[in-house]
């Protein structure tokens, strides 16, 4: 029983940052932006989140700084890809590399450490116990006692889904992706919609980053986003941006990640840490086969 609860909690923890970033990616996907910069935005968020929490001794300031840091990254993307009309792919690669370099540099300059910085002064984001529910056996151990960000992620999934499919913004957002000239000639600036989608993506990636440095662990280490932004990109493309689909894919990935940890008891860790990536490859393969079948019909 404990193993199953552990696996499920592990799944939720691993899925959270991926899901948040992927929701951001979903918004830019619908806006027709080939945005691969979630990795960089998330890493920026993680660093600034740690910075805010450390200096103000306050986790809300940590979250605020994480969001601002990620938005800063998004603004750089906006400057190059939207304002200066540079290639989105190149901009994304540049931004991801810049983010690794900049956070590493600042870490070494500000804290005079290499690799990672941890301190009791960094206040982590609290876990939330839900009264009543926490006392229910098994269910309580899963539903209650998760990090605040986990609950925010659940909320974000619903909000993004609502935003994309039910609101005026959503109609315009998808229009920008389907046919931007059509939106422009309808009297709505497609570029403005794209800018907003990127800023919202920054907010969500910032939250993801704050979960990495203030939730999952309480420290910042160089390149700690560790490919999660890329996996979120895979999730977005796999389900063509659909937020519900993204949630399922993220959970699946989180599950394999947890499974990998669990399998470390009997297998060398080098192999078990491959599990999530192998799962991603299998998912891609299954998806492409399905797509081919659909096309031949």
């Amino acid at each position, binding site marked *: 029983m404990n193993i199953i609860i552990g696996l499920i909690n592990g799944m939720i923890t691993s899925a959270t940052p991926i899901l948040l970033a992927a929701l951001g990616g979903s918004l830019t996907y619908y806006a027709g932006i080939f945005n691969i910069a979630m990795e960089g935005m998330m890493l920026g968020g993680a660093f600034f989140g740690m910075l805010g929490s450390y200096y103000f001794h306050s986790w809300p300031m940590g979250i605020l700084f994480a969001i601002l840091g990620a938005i800063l990254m998004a603004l750089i993307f906006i400057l190059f890809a939207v304002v200066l009309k540079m290639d989105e792919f190149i901009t994304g690669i540049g931004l991801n590399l810049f983010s690794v370099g900049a956070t590493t540099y600042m870490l070494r300059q500000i804290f005079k450490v290499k690799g990672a910085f941890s301190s009791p002064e960094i206040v982590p984001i609290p876990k939330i116990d839900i009264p009543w529910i926490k006392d229910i056996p098994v269910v309580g151990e899963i539903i209650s006692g998760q990090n605040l960000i986990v609950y925010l992620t659940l909320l974000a999934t619903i909000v993004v889904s609502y935003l994309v499919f039910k609101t005026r913004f959503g109609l*315009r957002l998808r229009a920008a992706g389907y046919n931007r000239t059509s939106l422009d000639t309808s009297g709505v600036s497609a570029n403005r919609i794209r800018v907003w989608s990127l800023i919202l993506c920054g907010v969500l990636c910032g939250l993801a980053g704050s979960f990495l440095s203030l939730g999952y662990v309480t420290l910042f280490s160089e390149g700690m986003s560790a490919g999660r932004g890329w996996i979120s990109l895979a999730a977005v493309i796999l389900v063509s941006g659909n937020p519900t689909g993204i949630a399922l894919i993220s959970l699946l990935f989180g599950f394999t990640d947890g499974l990998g940890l669990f399998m470390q008891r009997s297998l060398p860790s080098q192999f078990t840490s491959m599990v999530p990536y192998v799962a991603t490859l299998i998912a891609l393969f299954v998806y492409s086969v399905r797509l081919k079948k659909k096309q031949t019909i």
Partner: protein
Amino acid sequence: MADIIEMDRIVKIFPPSLVALDAVSVKFAKGEIHAIVGENGAGKSTLMKILYGMQPADSGEMVYNGKKVKFSDPGEAILAGIGMVHQEIMLIPQYTVWENVVLGYEPVKFGGRLDVKKARELVKQKIDEFGFNLNADAKVEDISVAARQKVEILKLLFRNVSVLIMDEPTSVLTPQEIPQLFGELKRLRDNGHTILFISHHLEEVLELSDRITVLRKGKKVGTIKTAEATKAGLAQMMVGREVIFDSIRKNQTAGAVLFQTTALNYTDPDKRPRLIDVNIQVRAGEIVGVAGVEGNGQLELVNLIMGLIEPTSGSIKAVGEDITRKPILEKRKRVAFVPQDRANMGASISANIAENVIMTHHRLDQRFTRWAGRILDFKQAASFTDEVRRKFDIQMSSGEAVFKSLSGGNQQKVILGRELLLEAPFILLDQPTRGLDVGSIEYVHQRIIDMRAQKRGILMISADLEELFRLTDRIVVMHKGRVVADLVTEKTNVTEVGYLMLEGAAYEA
């Protein structure tokens, strides 16, 4: 009638030195259909784009409803009441009709939530008000092109525009759909809307408009009342010289059979028969036209001849050799081919003009290559490009310029020049003049007649019956994949061919 729009001495220059509009002044009256005609590149679209705020004018003034105006983007023009329906339809195929119509002016409830019920009602109201035959809930990708065009118009009416600019609205429609559009436009005019109609189809202009403004090379030639205009007069105003619309063939006797399909059958991968027992012959010095409503097997015929698909049975012979399954280079030695789709099949639009001109030549003609075909000789390519430019009167800056920088007419001339200079005895032309202006069409026709005089055999597919009657010696009519008639052009008439195209059987008077 009062003038609703006055454009005064509008100048537009595209750097470095192309004067697109040279002090054009024109007035549009309230409640009229005003056609703007001219050849490709005459400045019609540019003038309208300036009015609509899509491009800024370099100088000149505009007065709209008595006030001086200047729109910096289409949004402002729409707010003021001027809307434009573009040549290529700008809708979102994945959206429903009502979603497309309300986009940008969506009714919302609390919290930015779309008010779906209200939006649908408003759109349905508009559909009823203007008597459009549209389903507000249909997805745009599922409806016909004509219906999409109606959605575009509806979208503008939803924004309460009083001036509608239509850029070549009939170019995407089938002949049967055009009268309906014209009916709707006339009804809008009678409701007090002003319609500006860009076209280079003179029959349409004469049928629909109240007044006509003719542009030529960026200058206004004049504005005339349609009632006082004739086709020949308009054509002369457009081109600047007399254009002949009658048959231009000289009598000559045809020679030996150059091209022949024998019992050609083709069934597509979905097991639908597309071509059934097709027998077509073309002799030297003869132009054979293929008439038919689009989608009756013409595309498959062309693809079979060029080897893009393989026949289920039957054979194709050209210049005495069976080429049914011959490799493309073998085919190209015998068959020159001007495809319908210039941008995808006719040319590599991102390559430069010279590269496009020597395509195929570089495989068949030794002078373009050195080192046993491994190295291209660009000097030879340049001089050949120059030869094509001179012989086919192509307006271009240099052979180094990218192909897509050419106007439609000049693109077609480049392709035509390349193909006709291949000196293949048989020439296959698929819609050789589609989308070209009057002047270019006349030019292309003249070259085709020249080929006939050189005793080459020509098979020409065209949707334009007038063109077929002007050029061909014989017309074969295709209907549902069969050749239903093989007629001598001089012994038939448009009514008979039109009837065969639609019914597939002989007209019984």
